[in-house]
């Protein structure tokens, strides 16, 4: 519990310091094309990884495990995105489909 609290404070303060570094750094450092490419790719790779881990190891026990209703809700979210829905609609669709399937099964 204590480890969680220490980690939480470090990560929270660190996140703020990253923002502060951004508005404090000389532009030359952050304007480097390679650095900018890496920065652009970071959320792409990590958000995909978060999606994959959320779907393939939802219970976080370090084993591949898939949950039918969550996968169905996620599939519905993909369809919503293909239909150009905004984040809020995507969220509602995924949660509603998952909850509905759990209710029915």
């Amino acid at each position, binding site marked *: 519990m204590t480890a969680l609290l220490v980690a939480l404070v470090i990560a929270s303060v660190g996140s703020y310091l990253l923002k502060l570094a951004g*508005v404090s750094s000389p532009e030359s450092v952050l304007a480097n094309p390679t650095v900018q490419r890496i920065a652009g790719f970071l959320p792409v790779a990590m958000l995909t990884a978060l999606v994959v881990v959320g779907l393939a190891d939802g219970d976080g026990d370090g084993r591949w495990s898939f949950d039918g209703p969550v996968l169905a809700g996620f599939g519905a979210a993909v369809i919503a995105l293909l239909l150009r829905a905004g984040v809020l609609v995507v969220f509602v669709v995924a949660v509603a489909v998952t909850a509905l399937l759990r209710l029915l099964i």
Partner: protein
Amino acid sequence: MTTEEQISLARAYPAVLRAAIGLGVYAGVFGATFGAVSVGSGLTVGQTMTLSLVMFSGASQFAFVGVAAAGSPWAAIPAALLLGVRNAFYGVPISEILAPHGWRRLVTAHFVIDETTAMAVGQAEPRAKQYAFWSTGLILFTLWQTGSLVGALLGTAIDPARFGLDAAAPAVFLALLWAQLRTRSAKVVAVLGGLVAFLLIPVAPAGVPVIAAAGVAVAAGLAVRPRPGGAS
């Protein structure tokens, strides 16, 4: 300021405010989801609110809670921070727009996130940019905190899985990711990052699959040589 500019600004402000309120409503609901998922993952209401108030960056907060809940608080630190790196880069356009100095810089920094940057950069006139940054930042911050608190309090009373809230994080992450998949190289990075994470799930400690995906981003950033004049 010319009359033309004044007319343009007068037209820009209500539209900016409407967009900021729209983002705020979404942030309120998303914040409530975060609050519910966070306490559902075993964090207290106080810890959940510390994340929302101090970290104040949705993807990082979800990542922290997700990795920490899997039993690895230390791995949750790099997961949250690596996702927060993009906020540092938003500082470049924001510094140009607001030119913050002294204590104002300390306050401005806290509000440099996806939504405020997109809104500020999206305006034409300098004053509209500043207005967009602060209106979006203050509305979003207020509703994000309110949503987080409501979600955390409700989350202690309900089972998040019963209401399908465990599907919320992957769906929202995908939605955040969607707009960034325009280039071919971004799609390749997404597929490789996802594949690395998937393969590491059974062999690596919790949290490591997500952090390892950051390695794919670094490798791709070093490897890709943008063709002159063309999107890479």
